[in-house]
């Protein structure tokens, strides 16, 4: 246990010594504070701690819509775009050199000549590297948690699911970087390969998402699109799905199946956090009472879209990818002559 704590503490020291860590943390806190500056009054929404007020009849203090909007900004914008994309890229840039530096001759020798198994050393070092993201997201979530509690009197611990999910998402990319580092000992190469794999998986996930919307969500919402002219028509009722589109979607989904679901895993947060007992994928539950039939139809279709992949599929297939990649890296590390 002492050895494990030593490596984790060293990982923290390493991160703390990196300027990028503090820059990202500063930006994270700044964004979280801007989020926390949003509040709700009897007249509508206040921003920058009451400096400006936007009048709105629906989104007012104490309303379900205010709570939904506040949480949606967190789950649909801040988490996927700042924490789940930009901050993650910065984290990857910062963390990528950890393994190549560790594996350099003269450095690795000291660590592996100690009475600790190579397997433990490798895994703890890997987990230690994930601290970068875990700390950043934790700080962000603490501010968001306090903001929700103070603004809405909703002390929602489910917000902290973001820490687990985003650290998991980061680990899915970082494991590729580690494997490349074990093979090449090059920081630059491990960063480029990780970014490349991430880019490929994101493209496939976005393609799958767009294909699903075109194949299932649009017909279910009563919308049809002319592929030649791009003209959209609203039928007002549920339409049949195209078998051709279904076939094409099936191919895209099959291609993406063995790859890590970074985007889907990030959006799992929408299933994990709730507002008044309903999770963020239950779109129809957050509609106004006066919502039209077509709005209801669209909300239902979006619910299906949000729930098209089970948690087991997203986590299971991603975890299988990570275990496979990390398993190879670990196998090489354990058997390698340094």
């Amino acid at each position, binding site marked *: 246990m*002492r050895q494990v704590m030593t490596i984790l503490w060293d990982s923290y020291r390493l991160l703390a010594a990196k300027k990028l860590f503090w820059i990202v943390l500063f930006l994270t806190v700044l964004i979280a504070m801007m989020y926390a500056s949003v509040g709700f009054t009897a007249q509508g929404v206040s921003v920058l701690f009451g400096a400006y007020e936007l009048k709105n009849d629906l989104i007012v203090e104490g309303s379900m819509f205010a709570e939904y909007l506040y949480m949606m900004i967190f789950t649909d914008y801040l988490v996927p775009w700042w924490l789940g994309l930009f901050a993650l890229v910065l984290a990857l840039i910062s963390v990528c050199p950890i393994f190549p530096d560790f594996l350099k*001759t003269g450095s690795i020798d000291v660590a592996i*000549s100690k009475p600790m*198994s190579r397997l433990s050393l490798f895994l703890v070092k890997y987990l230690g590297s994930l601290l970068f993201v875990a700390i950043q997201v934790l700080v962000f979530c603490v501010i968001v948690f306090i903001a929700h509690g103070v603004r809405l009197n909703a002390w929602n611990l489910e917000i902290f699911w973001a820490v687990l999910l985003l650290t998991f998402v980061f680990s899915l990319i970082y494991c590729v970087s580690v494997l490349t580092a074990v093979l090449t000992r090059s920081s630059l190469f491990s960063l480029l390969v990780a970014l490349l794999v991430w880019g490929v998986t994101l493209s496939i996930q976005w393609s799958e998402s767009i294909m699903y919307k075109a194949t299932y969500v649009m017909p279910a919402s009563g919308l049809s699109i002319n592929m030649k002219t791009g003209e959209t028509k609203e039928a007002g009722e549920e339409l049949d799905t195209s078998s051709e589109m279904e076939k094409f979607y099936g191919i895209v989904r099959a291609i993406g199946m063995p790859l890590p679901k970074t985007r889907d895993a990030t959006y799992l947060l929408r299933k994990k956090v709730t507002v008044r007992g309903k999770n963020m994928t239950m779109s129809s539950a957050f509609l106004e009472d006066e919502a039209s039939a077509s709005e209801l139809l669209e909300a239902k279709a979006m619910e299906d879209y949000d729930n098209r992949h089970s948690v087991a599929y997203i986590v299971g297939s991603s975890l299988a990818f990570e275990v496979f990649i990390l398993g190879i890296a670990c196998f090489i590390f354990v058997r390698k002559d340094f």
Partner: protein
Amino acid sequence: MSDIVIDIADVRKKYRGGVEALRGVSLQVPQGGIFGLLGPNGAGKSTLVKILTSIVRPTRCAGIMLGAAIGDKATLARVGYLPEHARFPEYLKGGEVIRYVAGLTGISSADARQKAGQLLEMVGMQDWGNHKMGTYSKGMKQRIGLAQALVNDPEIVFLDEPTDGVDPKGRLEMRNLLQRMRDDGRTVFINSHLLGELEMICDSVAIMDKGEIVQQGTIAELTEKSRRYELKTRGTIPEELKHKLIAAGAEIGGEVISVVGSDPEPIQPMLDALRAEKVTIVELREIRQSLEELFMESVGAGGVGGTQKRSTPPQLPGKELVK
């Protein structure tokens, strides 16, 4: 005879690609002394140390270290190691590096803190323990490297080229530290190509070449066959006496009479005879081969990376008996 702390036989290492770094190394290292492993670049010295410290997996290895099989992880808690070209995290301070290595060895935080203070003082870095490694000179880094190798009170300390990049003053201090380690009862195993330094401190050595041990023993044992006495005279030695001296085993070349062997007794009647003939004795010296000569003889001039055999013989270390 002292106990043996390392006893290995037929250690082989063939790297992927076919390079055979070790070709059946057998070695015994006695407890509580300074053991030097010499060899030209590429002889396999570092590979051998890395096998003993589990950094490199041997192709074949039979033997024990501190009573356990080579590769036993638990045994490494009793071993210290300073690698060649050691790199320590630049973001850590000197004292933190020692505590970090202590932690990897499983030493409690409180003990590590106490030990770090003692070791910093021992290596003369007590005023620099709170400075980051990035600000240290090469010599200072080596001192911290030595300190971290001792943090677990090891029974064996492996030092791979410990004086590499260290200035002459630092080398002298390093030698004193090594002698202190020996006095503390530790076994110090040094890999080095600085033969002069090893000769000053090593109790026993092994010479390695092309993945094999070519010579092994104490320096006295290895240089025994080359030991001789040299008498330098002035004036003419009568022919009759010359014949007598040659018959007694002496070799005469000009004004120098050589007697091969380590026993000074056969010299005594020769001295008497020379004095009786009124031959002036200028000098009597005990001569033995230097470690460098022994090394060159063992590996051959071509075996030493970048080193060439000198055209003039080096100054032999000698013990003057009469002058």
